[in-house]
Each structure stands twice: as structure tokens, then as C-alpha cells.
């Protein structure tokens, strides 16, 4: 018997769903074995994980708020990445762009918070973040358009430039560094949530909805329309599919690439503004890896706008739920929770592979002369 891999054409939707569900089930089963091995009841653990620990929780409303706070930057970043990916521009620089956006947000908030009306400051924070992140992405796009450089490498490297800049600013206690709290002896980031913060709307009971959630849903809607209906969205599809064809159709491919990457990076900046503007403080781990996770989400969602919402929601359940569940079980630390998350994502990605390809077993008849 031998096997080889064959590309699949269109798999029916129900089969795809079955594959994904099967992958998650397999991962959970594997996780259950591991949990049993360390003496934890898997059913109780999963119960806690998938309910996000809300059952019997006196402050469940906080859980939803925290969950949504995790979700907002991830959805927006994934949406933004999908724009660039649709054009086959492999923007791996979500982290770097997010950091640049976060820095710009903090600068505006600290310098203008309390000086100008809150609404104005919030808008300026968003704009500053979008411009900062947008330009950071634009650098790579410009180099690609002008010199044909590889965007994957450059965006990846710029991630680290941004990260070390942020780390430097967060750890260097000097008089000019207004990003740190001047009253603290140690390098502590300056908190500005008292001065300016995205408001929450009281909804049901004690649950209040951060306005950013509403913005993200609206942005999702706009992106959907932008990609599906507008001329610019059409241009993105054509350039992504075949740059030669786009050029032939009279599209200015260079400017389209610049425009789309700028937009993509801008939205990542906006995600950073939402994040920083909601927590009211900067830190070296502000991105929470959304730049990386966003790539997985966009890929799993096959760049479909609404699927991105769904996949992000599930990834966040996984992420948040495993932290919550780990708190209740002494044997489970967050490393284990992370590992379980990894197993689930890995198997789902494997399922994703099997929706695109399939393995064929080959029967070999007769005697073997060549031994290949």
C-alpha cells in the first residue's frame, strides 16, 4: 500500500462542517485523555471551559465583557488581514502594525486626554492609530511595488522593530518618556483610563456593551460590502487572482496594492486603538498575539467576512475558556490550557487541509522489482 495526496474540488458544505466538527471532537478527546492522566475530570473541565465559567457565576456579565474585549481586536485584525490576503499580499506584520497603532493611541490619549473633549480625543486616537499603523504597512507595500521586495519577510521583520521600540519605551524611565507614569519610581506605564476611554452602554442587568463591539460589527458590514460590491473591492479580487490580468484590464496595480495594504494596516491600527482605548494603558504584551492569531483566523475563515466573526468568536471561547477553567483545577496551569488550545487549532487546520486535499491509498499489484 502506498499513499499520495490529491487536490479536492468542491467539497459539499455539510462534509466540510463534519470534518471541522470531527477535528474539534478529536482534539477534545485527546485533551480528555491528557486531563485524565493528570487526574482532572474532563467533562467538568470542558463544561467550565465552554461556558466560560458563567454557570453559577455571580459576575457573569463581567465574563461577557472580558470575552468581548478579547474578541474585538481579534476580529478587526483578522478582517484587516483578510483584505490584504485577498490580494495575495501576505501581511504577516499585524503585530508590528498593531503596536504602532497602540503607541499612537497612547500618545494622543496621554497628551490630549483631559485637554480636549473626550469624544474628540477618542476620534483623534483612532485616527492617529490608523495613520501610524497604515504608514507602517505602507512602507512594505511601497518597497514591494517599487523594488519587488518580499512582503512576507519585511512585514515579519518590522514586527520585531516595533516590538523592541515598544519594549524600549515601556522600560526606559527617563524624563522625556511621557508614556511612563511620572509618579512611579519604577517604569510603570502611564494609565489614562480616568481621562479618556471608550464608553460602554448599559444593556441588560449589569452588562454594558463596549461601543467598540458595535463599531466592529459595522466595520464588518462595510468590509463585506466593500469587497463584494465596490469597484475597489473588485480590483482587489482581480489583482489577487492575477496581477497580469489586472494590469491588462487597465488597473493601476501599484496604487491598488498601496491603497489596500494601507487600508489593511489602518484597520489593524484601529483594532489597537479600540484595545488601548478600552484598557486605558499600554504594555509590552498589548497585542496579545492578535497579529498572529488573526492570520490563522483569516485562513480558517477562508477570508469570508462573516466566517471571520464566527471563527474569531470560537477561538476566543477557546482562549478565554481555557484560562477560566484552569483557575478551578489545581493540576491544570495555563501551559496546559495553551497546549490544549494548540492541539485543537492544529487539528482544525489539519481538517482544513483535508477539505482541500485528500489522501488516496494505492493498491499495488504483483511483484516488486523496483523498490521505490
Amino acid at each position, binding site marked *: 500500500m502506498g499513499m499520495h495526496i490529491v487536490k479536492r474540488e468542491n467539497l459539499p458544505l455539510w462534509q466540510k462542517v463534519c470534518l471541522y466538527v470531527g477535528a474539534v471532537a478529536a482534539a477534545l478527546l485527546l485533551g480528555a485523555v491528557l486531563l485524565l492522566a493528570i487526574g482532572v475530570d474532563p467533562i467538568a473541565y470542558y463544561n467550565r471551559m465552554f*461556558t466560560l*465559567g*458563567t*454557570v*453559577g*457565576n*455571580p*459576575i*457573569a*456579565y*463581567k*465574563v*461577557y465583557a*472580558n470575552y468581548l*474585549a478579547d474578541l474585538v481586536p481579534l476580529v478587526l485584525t483578522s478582517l484587516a488581514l483578510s483584505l490584504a490576503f485577498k490580494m495575495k499580499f501576505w501581511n504577516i506584520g499585524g503585530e508590528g502594525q498593531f503596536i504602532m497603532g497602540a503607541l499612537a493611541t497612547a500618545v494622543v490619549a496621554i497628551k490630549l486626554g483631559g485637554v480636549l473633549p473626550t469624544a474628540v480625543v477618542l476620534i483623534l486616537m483612532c485616527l492617529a492609530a490608523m495613520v501610524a499603523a497604515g504608514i507602517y504597512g505602507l512602507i512594505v507595500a511601497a518597497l514591494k511595488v517599487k523594488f519587488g521586495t518580499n512582503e512576507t519577510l519585511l512585514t515579519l521583520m518590522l514586527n520585531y522593530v516595533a516590538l523592541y521600540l515598544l519594549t524600549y519605551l515601556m522600560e*526606559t*524611565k*527617563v*524624563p522625556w*518618556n511621557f508614556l511612563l507614569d511620572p509618579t512611579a*519610581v*519604577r*517604569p*510603570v506605564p502611564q*494609565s489614562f483610563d480616568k481621562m479618556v476611554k471608550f464608553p460602554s452602554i448599559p444593556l*441588560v*442587568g*449589569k*452588562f454594558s456593551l463596549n461601543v467598540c463591539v458595535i463599531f466592529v460589527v459595522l466595520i464588518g458590514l462595510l468590509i463585506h460590502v466593500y469587497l463584494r460590491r465596490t469597484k475597489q473591492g473588485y480590483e482587489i479580487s482581480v489583482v489577487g487572482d492575477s496581477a497580469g490580468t489586472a494590469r491588462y484590464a487597465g488597473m493601476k496595480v501599484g496604487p491598488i496594492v498601496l491603497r489596500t495594504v494601507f487600508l489593511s494596516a489602518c484597520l489593524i491600527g484601529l483594532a489597537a486603538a479600540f484595545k488601548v482605548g*478600552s*484598557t*486605558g*494603558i499600554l*504594555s509590552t*504584551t*498589548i497585542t496579545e498575539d492578535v497579529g498572529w492569531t488573526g492570520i490563522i483566523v483569516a485562513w480558517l475563515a477562508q477570508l*469570508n467576512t*462573516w*466566517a471571520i*466573526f*464566527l471563527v474569531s*468568536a470560537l477561538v476566543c471561547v477557546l482562549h478565554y475558556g481555557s*484560562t*477560566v477553567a*484552569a*483557575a*478551578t483545577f*489545581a*493540576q491544570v*496551569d*495555563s*501551559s496546559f490550557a495553551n497546549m490544549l488550545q494548540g492541539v485543537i487549532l492544529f487539528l482544525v487546520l489539519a481538517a482544513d487541509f483535508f477539505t482541500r486535499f485528500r489522501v488516496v491509498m494505492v493498491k499495488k499489484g504483483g511483484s516488486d522489482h523496483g523498490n521505490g
Partner: protein
Amino acid sequence: MKKILALVMAMVLVLGLVACGETGAAGSNEEGLSAQTLKVGAIYINSKNDTAGYTFAHHSGITAAMKELGMDTEKQLFIVDEVPEKKDDVLAAVDTLVGNGVNIIFGISFGYIDAMEEAAAEYPNVIFSHGTGYKSNETNFNNYFGRAYQARYLAGIAAGLKSLELGNNNVGYVAAHTTDYAETASGINGFALGVQAANPNAKIYVKNLNNWADEVNEKAYAEELINSYNCGVISQHCDSAQPQIAAQTAGVFGCGYNSDMTPDAPKAHLTAAIWNWNVYYRTAMEAAIKAGTADKFVATMGTSAYYGGLKEGFVDVSPLSENCAENTDKAIKAVKELIISGEWDVFTGVKLEIAADGTVTQKDAALESNGFQHKDGDFKVPMENVEVVAAGGASVEDGVITGTMNYLVAGVEEV
């Protein structure tokens, strides 16, 4: 796809409603807490399954204290670990713990400070206790730390006597940080003063790791202190036993930190400044039970800033090893008594003189810095007044030791 999404959203909201309706007051504290009903929450910087280091020390302290009180660490302890020093992450961890109905939350890392303060205001029915910090309120929020400088002073005596015996006045110190943190500065100073009490001619060389845990450099820096600065005794303020192991390899001696490091370097280790975290955790848990409600916690503790030392047994030195110089035992015992009785403390205008036979005498002498202080990101800003405490003067304030000590005492050199 839209429908699925709408469904998910709707489900989330409905769940939210149900959960919100279930119970009224958040984190409600029933009257009459007991060791059997107290629920403890903890937020750790590293994994709760660590087997060494900072988080391990606290986790051991909390579980030891709970066992002393007859509590069940599986059912009554809730932990969110690997929480970075990031406000929203800490707040989310607090939410998770409060959601589990805990009565008291210990946050062990300094960077949790603002989040702990905010959470204390948000959840007045839960006690917040923050390790190494300096913020607090009048009701349900305190901070705790220990007079590690006292233990280091004792270790310094062992090192000073050893240096006399060796006839080598150079003592090394591998430091996580130096003057940028009062905690590290006071540790270095306490140790240096202890060394000088035994050997007034000693010189203390400090190397700054700029990192709380960095095993590779902990070893390398110790080696450098031994090889380039000819140090005969190596002390440390860092997590691993690497400096002690380096000392043993080079045939010199050392004082460890956090735990008794004699097993790690039996031929080099003298004694270590150690923490008994369970002392505080037990005190805090007992206070929480006694207070009944969270708002009375600070009053029950008597202070919003717990600062235990040798007296409480919160800090100490590990049993002296055979490597110690003669009469070390006697000298340390005498000084310990002076400190526990409250007759004398380290950062005062009175210096101790320890004779070779281990007898201790007191002498008025000014406490002087080495002439520099840490200010505005610059490590070496000249100090206008080198004299910190005049001869015969009282000890510096606790607030200085925990918050603003940004200088090293005379005889210490940062290299």
C-alpha cells in the same frame, strides 16, 4: 453564515441574562467566615506548577498556610497563573476569581498594583492583598512585603567574617536590579552594612543583571566578579543558585537567596536570606476569617501595609553551613536578638561592630551613601548630602526602604 452568527450572538446574550439574573450581589460575603468556607484566590506571574523561583515560593507559602489552617487546597484555592503585568489581563484574572466566589485575592507581582487598586474599588466585598506593592485603602486592600534587608544583614555578617578569615576584602553581589528598585537597593545596602560590621575594610562589588531571572548571566556575572574583581564571597539577589554553583566551582564562598542553597553548593554556601511567605499568608487568612466582611480586613490587620521581618519570622537566614567562619553563629544570634527586641535596626545612625570572637558592640556613626543616586533614568547622579542618617539618628522610614531608597551605601561599588 449570517444566521449562524446571529444565533451565536443571541445565545451569548441570553446566557448573559440568565447568569446575571441568577445571583444578586457580586462576591457576597456571608457573615461568619471560617477556615472551612474561606475561598482563596491568587494571581501568579509564572506557572503554578513551577518547581523553583518566585511563583513557586509564593505558591508554597499559600498552600502551607492553608494546610496549617486545615483548609482544602483543591476546593478552596483558585489560581489564575501566567498573568503578565498588564492591567486588563490582571483585571480579567480578578473577574475570573471573583466569579468563583473567592473572599481574598493575593496578587504576587509588583506590576499588578494599579489593577489591584482598581479591582479593590470595584469589588468592595472581596479582599485584595498585593505583594511587594505600596498601594492600599482603609478597608479591603492592603499590601505586604518583608524586611529582607534584616535577613541580608545577617547573611552579610557571615560573609564579612568569612572575608576576614580569607583575608580577602572583596565581596561580590549579583543583583537583579540595583538603584532602580528600592527593594534591590535596600537588599544590597543591608547586606553591605552586615559585611562592614564584621569587616570594616570590605568592599562590595555589585553587578546588575537588569532582569529578575536570567540563569545564564547569573552564572556569568558571578564568574566575572570572582575572576575580574577577585571576590572571595558572592552574594546574590536573583532566582537561581547559579552564583553559588559558580562560587563552588571557583573555590570561593557565597550567600544564597530565597531558599537554603547549601544542597546546591555544599562546599561554598554559607547561609541564605530566606522568606517564609506562609507567615504572612497565614496571618492574612486568619485576619480575613476574623474580620468576617471584607471592609474590616485592614482594620483587623491593624495596618494597610504589612511589613514583617525577623520578629514575625517572615524573613530569616537558613541554617549556617560548615563553611562559615568561626563565631558566625554567635554573632548572628546576638544581632538577631537586637533586631527582634526592637533595640536596633539596620538603617540607623548606630553601627554594630562585630569582633572576631563574635561579640557585638554598638557605636554611633552616620549612615552614608556612596555619593550617587538614581534619578530620572540616570544611575549616577551625585547626591548633595551623602549623609543619609546622622550619627545616633533613628532609622529611615519604612516608606524609604520600600519605595524611595535609590542609593547604595558607602563601600558599595556598581561594576
